[in-house]
């Protein structure tokens, strides 16, 4: 059973009140576990939020009448988020997923006030007895993209559209660059920040700017299909973000990094139903199936496929780590010694670029 509370906000206060009323009215059937989802964007963004909503629907499909899911979309990061999360907690939800980094503080605050409600926060680092953290090792996917890009690029110039310079994004840029350098040591990665997770027009303009400056591969860490669509029109190549975007770029898309949250969500809902839920902090990748790749596009050569598969299989087997030294930073100083790998905590705090990145 699905119960949808849609809140599209611009006026935070009044909208939150309206949302509260709707939630209040529905807080009846107590036998089903109510699971709430807080989204940062619209479910139709065809990117990050879309991916989480696909997983929510998987929970619906799996548990049927045992579970009632509710989602609130377009929740601004900050104080507004706290109100929304508290609304969910007070309206009988037993489990709440908050799916953006900026929801971390509000989630932690509300979790403290509602010890009986279980919270799951994506991509953060704060845990509590009733607050678990989960994230996906997207950098593993970026490494595979890098290997493909190293083969496909002709000019050796990659344009990378970033959202915000936070560790998650910086890590992706570095993983991509390191993997691409293995194939093409002279590759240059130009980074442009859109300063937005989601602005199709600006993302597209950034792609145009990068292609005008010679890039023949476009990477993005923003959520709309616009950059890939520009790549398609200009006859260059790129990678889809969060969803398979090949309908927008049938020739241009080399592959897409897919976020697969459904297994995790089903597992955690099951745990709450069974009473076995415990707080944890997990970071899953290819191996656990949280990160996956879309089918390779027509421009991916057999050689590129071979290296891409080798990268992916190596990561799954644990024989290959994208951040294995020697790694030099932008100044050419050694950042990771030969043979060493960067530990997870260093990765999650990454604030420097590897050599070859221009940002």
């Amino acid at each position: 059973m699905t119960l949808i509370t849609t809140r599209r906000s611009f006026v935070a206060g009044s909208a939150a009140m309206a949302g509260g009323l709707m939630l209040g009215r529905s807080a009846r059937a107590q036998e089903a576990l109510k699971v709430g989802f807080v989204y940062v964007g619209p479910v139709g963004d065809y990117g990050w939020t879309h991916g989480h909503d696909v997983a929510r629907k998987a929970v619906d499909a799996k548990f049927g009448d045992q579970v009632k899911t509710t989602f609130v979309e377009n929740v601004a990061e900050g104080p507004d988020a706290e109100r929304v999360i508290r609304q969910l907690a007070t309206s009988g939800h037993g489990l709440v997923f908050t799916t953006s980094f900026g929801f971390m503080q509000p989630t932690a605050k509300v979790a403290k006030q509602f010890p009986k409600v279980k919270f799951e926060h994506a991509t953060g680092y704060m845990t509590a007895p009733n607050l678990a953290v989960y994230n996906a090792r997207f950098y593993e996917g970026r490494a595979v993209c890098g290997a493909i890009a190293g083969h496909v690029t002709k000019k050796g110039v990659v344009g990378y559209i970033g959202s915000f310079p936070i560790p998650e994004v910086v890590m992706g840029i570095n993983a991509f660059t390191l993997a691409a350098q293995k194939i093409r040591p002279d590759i240059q990665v130009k980074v442009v920040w859109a300063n937005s997770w989601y602005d199709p027009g600006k993302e597209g303009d950034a792609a145009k700017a990068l292609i005008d400056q010679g890039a023949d591969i476009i990477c993005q860490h923003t959520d709309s299909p616009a950059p890939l669509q520009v790549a398609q029109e200009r006859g260059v190549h790129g990678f889809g973000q969060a969803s398979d975007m090949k309908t927008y770029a049938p020739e241009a898309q080399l592959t897409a990094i897919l976020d697969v949250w459904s297994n995790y969500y089903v597992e955690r809902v099951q745990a709450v139903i069974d009473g076995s839920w415990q707080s944890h902090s997990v970071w899953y990748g290819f191996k656990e199936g949280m990160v996956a790749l879309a089918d390779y596009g027509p421009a991916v050569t057999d050689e590129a496929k071979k290296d891409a598969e080798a990268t992916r299989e190596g990561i799954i087997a644990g024989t290959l780590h994208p951040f294995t030294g020697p790694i030099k930073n932008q100044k050419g100083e050694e950042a990771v010694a030969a043979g060493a790998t960067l530990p997870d905590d260093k990765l999650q705090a990454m604030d420097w670029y590897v050599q070859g990145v221009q940002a």
Partner: protein
Amino acid sequence: MSLDAMVLILITVISAATPLLYAALGELVAERAGVLNLGVEGMMLAGAVTAFAVTVTTGSASLGIVAGAIAGAVLAFAFGVLTLSLLANQVATGLALTIFGIGLSALVGAGFVGIPVERLPRLAVPGVSDLPVLGPLLFGHDVLVYLGLLMTFGVAWFLKRTRGGMILRAVGESDVSAHSIGYDVIKVRYLAVLFGGLMAGLGGAFLSLSYTPMWVEEMTAGRGWIALALVVFASWRPWRVLLGAYLFGGVTILQLHAQGAGGLFGLPAQVLSMLPYLATILVLTIIAAGPWRGRLNAPASLGKPFRPAT
């Protein structure tokens, strides 16, 4: 920087400025008639989704553009009924219209996410379009780009040179006086608001058919609000709106290029992202404060409801 690169940049600037130009021009006319409609973002989204849906369903982009404009006007009509006939508060109604437009467009557009559409064709003038530099710069755009420029001229001419424009301005400056000499204030305001909706709808149609030919939710990403700000900083003058829109679009694109080229004077990317806002506000404020006929030009009756004395 080579000449060809400059041309490419300028073409991108023109497409980035066009949706702002449409939305801001429409809002300018509504505000000059004394109506503050904060629902621009919602009307743009309605235009974007309708234009896209009609284009995909019928295969005709022209029909799509017309439908997009009508969709914007339909939302504007609802705003008019509430604020002009029922005298609801304009600010609150405008905000509600934006929220409504966001929700409605997402609902209508749910089935259209993930479908690509052909970009609007560029108008090609045989012979001229192939000229170096000038060809692509002047003759390489789609019909909506030219229509936007034409509209700027039309609105400026209408407001300044025609009787209708004078009546509209009179209604915006002093509704009571206009009423007392026999003009139908409510009717004039309805027409101005409808024009605003039409233009916002066209701006939205440009977004979903030309700028980024796709439908994704909230694809306006705040452009309606930027358009509203442009009207104020352009001190309610059409040519300044044009200047503001191109300036904003221009600096946005230039800063993206500066980042791609390795930065600008070592400024952080966040500062570069601020530049379009800073530059536009600064330039338009200087113009408005300058000696050349500079004064703040806000219509005196802006935002005030009008109830004709019976």
